[in-house]
């Protein structure tokens, strides 16, 4: 008995290690290599940096969505908040770089209010978060349209756009270094710390796993719920500011991003309805999804078929996750 255990131990350790590596990381590496075969520039540091820069907003959105999903809810309002951020940014700055800083502060305040409202509606009015954030999506989209009159004009000042656009050149070893990657690194580190290294993070998992048990254990479930929606909304404003630097001002910058953020988390092994998820998984899932889009574009697939591919990947990722859990149980 003791002997078999001793023989088994090294093998099982390897197995647990293999089981612990996030499946999204493996898929990401495979997809990235496939991209590199088509476009060798992606293997150079500059190619990698550019890939990360463009994937950063989705990764940030996924990091925020991770908190809500882990607590057992959904936040479908983030895409509309991204749109509101970009449109609000262009309306408030009015082409004057001097307005940028208070505009950004104002946009974060708007995000804070949206997050608080989402959280309060779920925590106190007990409206299921799908419906609550769906209603918020409609309202925020409507507000963005109202604000811009449906046809936004103008452009964002350069110091607003730098978070998405600015690239440091002549950096040793890696050559170029986009500011967006630094933003992503800061956001991801903060999210990692909050979810995996603090008592608050434990509470989020506890609420997602079993809210009643968490409550009996002394967790203020209502405050945790509000906090996760605030985190998600703030991440959406951050992503919006970065996306404002990428392209022009339009009413559909944020369209569908909420579903992409949920999809990214799901691909990264985050369990819907709460209780299970990792920051590494969420970010890896976002990068995987983005790598998939990039690859499909490189293969010359029309946009609609990219939707189809996204649908297949989404179902496959969740089915594989469910299958793994059933096998492990």
């Amino acid at each position, binding site marked *: 008995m003791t002997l078999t255990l001793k023989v088994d131990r090294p093998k099982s350790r390897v197995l647990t290690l293999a089981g612990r590596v996030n499946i999204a990381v493996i898929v990401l590496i495979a997809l990235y290599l496939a991209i590199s075969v088509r476009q060798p520039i992606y293997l150079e540091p500059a190619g990698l940096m550019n890939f990360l820069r463009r994937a950063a907003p989705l990764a940030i959105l996924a990091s925020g969505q991770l908190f809500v999903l882990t*607590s*057992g*809810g*959904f936040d479908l309002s983030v895409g509309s908040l991204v749109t509101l951020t970009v449109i609000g940014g262009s309306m408030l700055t009015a082409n004057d770089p001097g307005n940028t800083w208070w505009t950004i502060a104002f946009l974060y305040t708007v995000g804070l209010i949206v997050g608080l409202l989402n959280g309060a*509606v*779920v925590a*106190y*009015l*007990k*409206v*299921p*978060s*799908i*419906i*609550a954030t*769906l*209603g*918020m*999506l*409609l*309202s*925020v*989209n*409507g*507000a963005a*349209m*109202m604000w811009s009159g*449906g046809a936004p004009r103008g452009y964002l000042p350069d110091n607003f756009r730098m978070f998405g656009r600015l690239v440091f050149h002549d950096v040793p070893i890696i050559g170029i270094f986009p500011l967006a990657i630094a933003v992503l690194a800061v956001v991801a580190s903060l999210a990692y710390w909050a979810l995996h290294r603090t008592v608050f993070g434990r509470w989020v998992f506890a609420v*997602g796993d079993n*809210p*009643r048990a968490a*409550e009996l254990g002394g967790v203020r*479930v209502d405050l945790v*719920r509000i906090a996760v929606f605030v985190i998600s909304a703030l991440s959406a404003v951050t992503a919006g500011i970065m996306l404002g630097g990428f392209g022009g001002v339009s009413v559909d910058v944020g369209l569908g991003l909420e*579903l992409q953020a*949920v*999809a990214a988390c*799901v691909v990264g092994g985050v369990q*819907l*309805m*709460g209780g299970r998820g990792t920051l590494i998984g969420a970010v890896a899932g976002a990068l995987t999804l983005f790598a998939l889009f990039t690859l499909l574009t490189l293969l010359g697939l*029309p*946009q*609609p*078929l*990219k*939707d*189809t*591919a*996204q*649908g*297949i990947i*989404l*179902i496959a990722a*969740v*089915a594989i996750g*469910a*299958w793994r859990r*059933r096998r492990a149980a």
Partner: protein
Amino acid sequence: MSAVDVATRAAWLRRRGPRVPALLFVGSVALYVAVALWTGETRMLDTDGIIGLLQRMVALGVVALGQTFVIIGGSIDLSVANMISVAAVLASFIMQGHVDMMLPAVAIVLATSAIVGVVNGLIITRLAVNPLIATLGVGLILQGLLSASFTNFAGSVPPEFQLVAYSTLGVVPYSVVGLFVLAALGASLLRATRFGAHLYAVGGNAEGARLAGVRTNRVLILAHLICSLSAGLTGLYLASRLRSGAPWVGRDGVYDLESIAVVVIGGTLLAGGRGGVWGTLAGVLLFVTLDVDFNMLGVSAYPQLVLRGAIVILAVAAYTFRTRGHVA
């Protein structure tokens, strides 16, 4: 009254919940009448106005009836908007304006939607994929395939098929009659058949239902089949009304989110196990009258959007705010 009668009646009342449909119905109508009188748009109150109102209910109503079934079963269907587009385009593309292609087109559309419903159900039950993700994924797949094949209005429906949307029985359009026939059919399916009882059981407590001998997978697959079929019917109706189908008709109508919203506003529990089709119809009536109310009051399109979001939240909160348990 025997003990069993009392027990079934109590169970029936519990299942139906409070008198939501009636309240919602009276509230929507009262608001509509008040706004019409206030703004002096009294022509909205004559027969034509009322018929117009009812006709506006058809497209959302039919798909929402189907959505009611899956939500009672504790599931959800986000693929209905895309299914509607597929049905509308398929119908007009196959018909190409020919009368003799009407029946084959309708048959193919209904078969396609039945298959999509079964696929949804199988992914959810056999692959154990969360219904939100499963139907979202299937919706993306459908929309992708559709938009890759068609970029604009495809084909057309013959004038005979347009009668579906435009002909009337006396003053009442056939489509309105159809909606209420379907609703009565749905109500009796839920109220008077074994499938209905099992569906409530599965939505209330899937594991308990399974232990009691209900074939939960089969029940859920059937509910998804019904939901997809109702989306297919809505697609056919839209093709008839628009005289052709385009790959964006479903998405433009936001039928996925709106159908879920009216079901929940109608008193069906999003978590499943409780609710019914009359509440859903009352929810549809609320949405349709609100649209007309806003128009009569001269609220422009974007503020309407903002208000609509707030109304969805508040209407659902009216049921949920007394919940003692936890809601995510």
